[in-house]
């Protein structure tokens, strides 16, 4: 069973087009309930990749902030 990555933030980021909580697009959230496990795995892999791409930036911001 593959559960939804929703963490109840449910707000779209206008610049990335991704939900700020689960890192899915509107299309991906819309179709989630119709997908089989393979389709959901595919989205979760994309979500993990996007999260990874965003995290280093956040870390940079944080360390820059600390440096000041």
């Amino acid at each position, binding site marked *: 069973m593959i559960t939804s990555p929703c963490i109840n933030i449910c707000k779209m980021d206008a610049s990335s087009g991704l939900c700020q909580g689960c890192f899915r697009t509107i299309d991906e*959230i*819309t179709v*989630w309930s119709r997908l089989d496990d393979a389709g959901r795995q595919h989205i979760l892999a994309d979500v993990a990749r996007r999260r990874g791409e965003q995290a280093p930036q956040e870390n940079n911001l944080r360390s820059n902030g600390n440096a000041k």
Partner: protein
Amino acid sequence: MSLDLPASMLVLERGWLSANNILFFDGDKATLVDSGYVTHAEQTVELVHNALAGRQLNRLLNTHSHSDHIGGNAALKEAFDCEIIVPAGLHAVIAEWDKDALLLSPLGQQSARFQHDRLISANDEVEMGGLNWQALAVPGHDMEALAYYNPEKRILISGDALWENGFGVIFPELLGEADGLTSTQETLEMLSRLPIDMVIPGHGRPFSTVDAAFDRAFRRLSNFRNNIEQLAWHAIKVIVSFAMIERQRLPQDDFPAFVFSLPFAMDVNARFLNLSREALVSGVERQLLLVNALRRENGFLVAA
């Protein structure tokens, strides 16, 4: 595993703060059941707009009037000018926007005021997605709640009357307003006699393991009936957890005042548990940390 629903239906599976939204297509028209929590309304409108793909949303129907099911009503009305249809028993509390009866004030929740256009009563039928749905009275979690059942495809839209793992908090019992435990028992018995192949719950994924869900629901209800303190404690945890999900994060030191600010938690404690304020707060915090509903992070409590 995905479940095959008729192509004329689409479940927008949401989380806990927002209930699921169920969209039905009828040619170039569409109907939505339930609209999520108010702080998610913008995304709800975007999801619905995307799924409509040019169709017109002409009706919005609610299962009951709790904040996680009606929070997007005003925004959807504004975006799509849809007709809003609510369970008949909720006419007055919605018309007068009675924040106590809507449980907004007791639970420390927000919503956006809307006006309904029409009422639907138990035993009424409504056509959605080319299918005929019967409105069923499902008192318990909310005494005026309706579920929607299609006998042909054997699908139940249960709202918070039945989930894959349990059901919504039995508020009327805890508020001393009605015999919610007996109503929940009768509602579950009524539902369990229906031929059902699939349940679309208010929260969580649609499921077809219906017998197992009824077994769990009856067991849980039996525990609550044997031990009302268990229901009281469960309800307090759920309500604090819900409020924390909305808040996202809170300085650790502010948590006691936060719990004390939720009238429902305080009333239920006074009525059923009689814990000291300190014991109430530390108990809730410990239990929510234990089940990972909260985590500690640099002096903050964060909803997980």
